[in-house]
C-alpha cells in the first residue's frame, strides 16, 4: 500500500526533505529515502553531514530545520540517496562548559551512536588517514537477510559447553589453513573442528566496531607495534567490526557475520557475544570526539561534580548506564543483536558498572539489569555478567539476577587452580565449585547454572601457561611487566617455561587433563578457552590485550603435536554431554529424595564415605547418583570421581554399588593414552571393585554399569 506521507515537503539545495520519524534512532531506509534520527538534550542545533564513501570532504551539509526537531530528537527524511555510497555524520552545536558537563564542538563531525555499520577501519591494521576529520564513519545498511528457517537454539544453560575465542586470533596464525585468516568467514571454516571437539556454544570476544589503533604504540621491549587487539573499547555498539570481516573492504561485514551465525546454528552451535557497555573508546577529557561526547556528554558519561570523567572501567570513562537514555540505547542494542543477528546470548564485560547509579554508587535494584532480565525480546537469550569492575566492586555471588543472570565465576577459577596445583586447604572451596557453587548461588533459587565455570579465559594464562609458568611474563606489553594479574595460582611443574625435560612435559599434559576433567565434571556451565585443547601458549603473557601476533594467535600446528590432549578434551566434553548427572539445573540437596539408597551427591576420600577435610589433605572423591540426574527427572549411570592432587599415589576405597552394577573406568589421567579416557560405552570394567589406586596428581572417573554377560564390551575386543 502506498503511504500518503512519503513525499518531500522541503527542499534545500539539491536535496528533497521532509520531517522524519523520531524512532527508531539512527538511519533507516524508508521508501524513497533515508530517515535520520538523533537525540540530544542540550544541543542547540544539528546538521546532517554526507560524504561519498571514503571521501575526506563532505559533499553536503543539511541543517535540521526547527520543524524537524521533535522534542529532543532531530529527525528528517532525505530523499533520493544512493545509500550504499554514503557515509554520514552529524554536527551539533551547544554549550562548551566542562564544569557543567557539556563539551559541544560544532566543528567536529560526530558518528551516529546507532550506526549499523561503520567505515574508517575497513581492513584490520590498514593505516588510517589520520588527517581525516571523520575517522569512524557511520554507514547505512540493508537490514534484510535471508535467515531461511534459522532460529536461536535456546540450548539450556546446563547443557552448554562454551568455547571462548577472539575472532582474529582464532584463525589468523598461518597454521590455521583457512582461506580468509582472522575473519568471521575464517571461523566458519573451522566449524567441523568445533563439532569434533563437541562444544555447543562459541563466545566471541568483542565484535562491535572498535579502533585497533587506539593507544597503539611500539613496544620498547620487542620493537613490535602494540594494538588494541582485544577490542574492549567500543566505537559503536550496533556495528560489527569491519576489520573482522573478509568482506569489510566491500562494506559487507553485516552479511558475513549473519552468515556465520546462521551456519553455526545449522551445526548446533550457539553464538554468544562479549559486550562492553561499561565505557567507550572516547577515553577521558583528553580523548577524541567520536560520538557520545559530542552529542550529549552529560547524558552518556558518569561525570564527577567538576565535570571530569569517572573511571570505574579503568579505561578513562564510564558509560552512564542507568541514565534513561543510555539504558534505552543498551536495550535497543541488545534487542537488535538478538533479533537481527539471532545472537543466543551476551556476556557483559565489567557488568557491575551496569548497576551503578548516575553518581557511580552501586544500586540495590539497578533498573538496567532488571529491564534486561525481563525484556520480552531478550526473553530467551543468555545473560552472563562479569560480576566485577575496575572500581573495586566485586559481586560474584551477589550480582542482581532476577533468576536470569549467570556470572563468570571467578572463585571457580581461583579455587580449582589452587586445588590443581596442590595448595593446602583447598578442599573446602573445591567441594563448593564442583557442586555449582551453592555457597554463592543457592539464594533466590539461582541454581547451579548461575555459575559459568572456567579455569582459564582470555584474561589471564592459557591452560598450558598455567602449568608452565609460576610468574607472568608480560614484558612484550611494554609496561615493565607491571600489567596483568599477579594472583594466578599457577605452577610450572618444575621449570619456568618450555622445557625438554620429559618428566615435566608429561606432568604438564597430565595437569592439563586434570584441569579439563575438573571443569567438565563440575555442575554449572563450563567454558573452555579456545586453544587450551591443543596446549596453546602465550609464553607466559597473562594480559595479551595488545598483542596482535603469534603471542595471541592460536597455533594450529599444535593440534598434531598435542593430539593426545585434544582427544582427551573431546572425550571429556562427550562424557559430560552423555551424562545428565553432570548437568543439574538446581543445586544438590545432599540427600536421597528418589529412594535409590544414595544421596544425589556423596563425598568420599581414601576411605569410602569419609573425607579428610584437613589443611594438608589433597584427596577428594564424590559420587553422583544416577537416579537423581537432573533433579531426578531422568535416569543416568551413577558416576564416581576421585581426585588426588597429592604428589604420591593413593588408594581410594570405592563405595559399594547395588547388586548387578560394577564400576567401569571412563577416565584416568595417570594412564597412557588411549587408556587415559574411554569413549562413551567403551569404558573398561574394573578388576578390583574395592579400591582404585589413583596416581599422583591424577583424576579418575568411574561409571557404574550393569554386568552384561559378566564381561563389558571393551573386554571382548
Amino acid at each position, binding site marked *: 500500500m502506498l503511504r500518503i506521507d512519503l513525499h518531500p515537503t522541503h527542499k534545500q539545495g539539491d536535496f528533497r526533505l521532509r520531517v522524519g520519524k523520531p524512532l527508531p534512532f539512527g538511519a533507516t531506509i524508508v521508501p524513497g529515502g533515508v530517515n535520520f534520527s538523533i537525540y540530544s538534550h542540550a544541543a542547540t542545533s544539528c546538521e546532517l553531514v554526507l560524504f561519498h564513501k571514503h571521501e575526506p570532504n563532505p559533499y553536503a551539509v543539511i541543517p535540521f530545520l526547527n520543524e524537524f526537531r521533535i522534542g529532543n530528537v532531530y529527525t528528517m527524511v532525505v530523499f533520493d540517496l*544512493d545509500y*550504499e555510497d554514503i557515509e554520514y555524520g552529524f554536527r551539533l552545536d551547544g554549550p562548551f562548559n566542562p564544569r557543567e558537563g557539556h563539551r559541544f564542538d560544532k566543528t567536529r563531525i560526530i558518528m551516529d551512536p546507532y550506526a549499523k555499520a561503520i567505515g574508517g577501519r575497513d581492513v584490520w591494521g590498514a593505516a588510517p588517514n589520520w588527517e581525516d576529520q571523520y575517522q569512524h564513519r557511520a554507514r547505512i545498511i*540493508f537490514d534484510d537477510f*535471508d535467515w531461511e528457517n534459522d532460529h536461536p537454539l535456546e540450548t539450556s544453560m546446563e547443557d552448554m559447553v562454551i568455547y571462548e575465542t577472539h575472532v582474529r586470533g582464532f584463525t589468523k596464525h598461518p597454521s590455521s589453513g583457512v582461506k580468509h585468516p582472522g*575473519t*568471521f*568467514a575464517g571461523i566458519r571454516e573451522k566449524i567441523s573442528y568445533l563439532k569434533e571437539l563437541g562444544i555447543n556454544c562459541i563466545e566471541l570476544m568483542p565484535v562491535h566496531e572498535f579502533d585497533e589503533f587506539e593507544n597503539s604504540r611500539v613496544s620498547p621491549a620487542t620493537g613490535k607495534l602494540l594494538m588494541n587487539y582485544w577490542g574492549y573499547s567500543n566505537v559503536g555498539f550496533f556495528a560489527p567490526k569491519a576489520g573482522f570481516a573478509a568482506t569489510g573492504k566491500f562494506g559487507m561485514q553485516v*552479511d*558475513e557475520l549473519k552468515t556465520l551465525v546462521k551456519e553455526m546454528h545449522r551445526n548446533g552451535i550457539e553464538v554468544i557475544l562479549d559486550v562492553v557497555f561499561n565505557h567507550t573508546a572516547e577515553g577521558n577529557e583528553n580523548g577524541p570526539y567520536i560520538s557520545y561526547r559530542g552529542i550529549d556528554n552529560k547524558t552518556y558519561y558518569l561525570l564527577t561534580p567538576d565535570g571530569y570523567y569517572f573511571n570505574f572501567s579503568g579505561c578513562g570513562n564510564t558509560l552512564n548506564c542507568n541514565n534513561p537514555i543510555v539504558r534505552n540505547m543498551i536495550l535497543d542494542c541488545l534487542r537488535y543483536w538478538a533479533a537481527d543477528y539471532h545472537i543466543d546470548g551476551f556476556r557483559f564485560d565489567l557488568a557491575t558498572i551496569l548497576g551503578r547509579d548516575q553518581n557511580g554508587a552501586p544500586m540495590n535494584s539497578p533498573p538496567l539489569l532488571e529491564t534486561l532480565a525481563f525484556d520480552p525480546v531478550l526473553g530467551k537469550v543468555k545473560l552472563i555478567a562479569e560480576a566485577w569492575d575496575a572500581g573495586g566492586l566485586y559481586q560474584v555471588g551477589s550480582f542482581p539476577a532476577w533468576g536470569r543472570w549467570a556470572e563468570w565465576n571467578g572463585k571457580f577459577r581461583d579455587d580449582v587452580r589452587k586445588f590443581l596445583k596442590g595448595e593446602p586447604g583447598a578442599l573446602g572451596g573445591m567441594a563448593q565449585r564442583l557442586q555449582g557453587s551453592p555457597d554463592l548461588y543457592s539464594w533466590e533459587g539461582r541454581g547451579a547454572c548461575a555459575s559459568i565455570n572456567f579455569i582459564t579465559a582470555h584474561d589471564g594464562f592459557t591452560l598450558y601457561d598455567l602449568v608452565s609458568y609460576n610468574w607472568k611474563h608480560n614484558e612484550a606489553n611494554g609496561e615493565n611487566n607491571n600489567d596483568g594479574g599477579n594472583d594466578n595460582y599457577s605452577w610450572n611443574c618444575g621449570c619456568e617455561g618450555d622445557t625438554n625435560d620429559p618428566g615435566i612435559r608429561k606432568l604438564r599434559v597430565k595437569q592439563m587433563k586434570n584441569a579439563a576433567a575438573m571443569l567438565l565434571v563440575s555442575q554449572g556451565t563450563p567454558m573452555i578457552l579456545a586453544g587450551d585443547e591443543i596446549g596453546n601458549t602465550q609464553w607466559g603473557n597473562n594480559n595479551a590485550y595488545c598483542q596482535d601476533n603469534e603471542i595471541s594467535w592460536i597455533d594450529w600446528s599444535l593440534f598434531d603435536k598435542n593430539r593426545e590432549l585434544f582427544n582427551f578434551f573431546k572425550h571429556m566434553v562427550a562424557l559430560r554431554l552423555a551424562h545428565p548427572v553432570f548437568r543439574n539445573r538446581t543445586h544438590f540437596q545432599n540427600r536421597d529424595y528418589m529412594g535409590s539408597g544414595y544421596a544425589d551427591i556423596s563425598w568420599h576420600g581414601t576411605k569410602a564415605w569419609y573425607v579428610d577435610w584437613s589443611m594438608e589433605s589433597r584427596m577428594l572423591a564424590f559420587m553422583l547418583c544416577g537416579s537423581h540426574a537432573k533433579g531426578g527427572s531422568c535416569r543416568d549411570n551413577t558416576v564416581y570421581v576421585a581426585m588426588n592432587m597429592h604428589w604420591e599415589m593413593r588408594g581410594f576405597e570405592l563405595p559399594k554399588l547395588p547388586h548387578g552394577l560394577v564400576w567401569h573406568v571412563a577416565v584416568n589421567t595417570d594412564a597412557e593414552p588411549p587408556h587415559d579416557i574411554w569413549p562413551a560405552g567403551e569404558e573398561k570394567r574394573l578388576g578390583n571393585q574395592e579400591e582404585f589406586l589413583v596416581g599422583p596428581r591424577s583424576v579418575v572417573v568411574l561409571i557404574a554399569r550393569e554386568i552384561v554377560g559378566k564381561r563389558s564390551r571393551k573386554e571382548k575386543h
Partner: protein
Amino acid sequence: MEIKVVNRDGVTLVALLGNLDGNTAPEVQEKLEPLVEAKCCLILDLIKCGYVSSAGLRVLLMLAKHLTAQEGRLALIGVCPEIKDVMEMTGFINFFELHDTIEEVLKTK
C-alpha cells in the same frame, strides 16, 4: 550499466556489462523482473561485470527467489573468482546456481 537481453530456445540470456551496485541495481531489477515467467530459465552472464555490491547481491537473490517460486531457474555464468568469493563469505552463494558456460546450464537442466 549496459543490459543485453537475448532469447534463445526458451532460454533468456542476460549479459550485465558494468558494476552491479547501489547505483545500477534498481535499473537491473526493473529490467529483469518482467522477464520472470513461470518455469523459465534465466541465465545471467556476469563475465563483463567487475563488481557486485551488497545491493547487487540482493537484486540477484530477489530474482532467484521469484524464479524458484514459479518453478523457474536463475543461473549465473562467468562469475569471476573475486565475486564468487564475496558470495561465499556472505552466504549468498547458497541461493545461486553457478556455472561456467551456457551449455553447462542447459545440461544440468
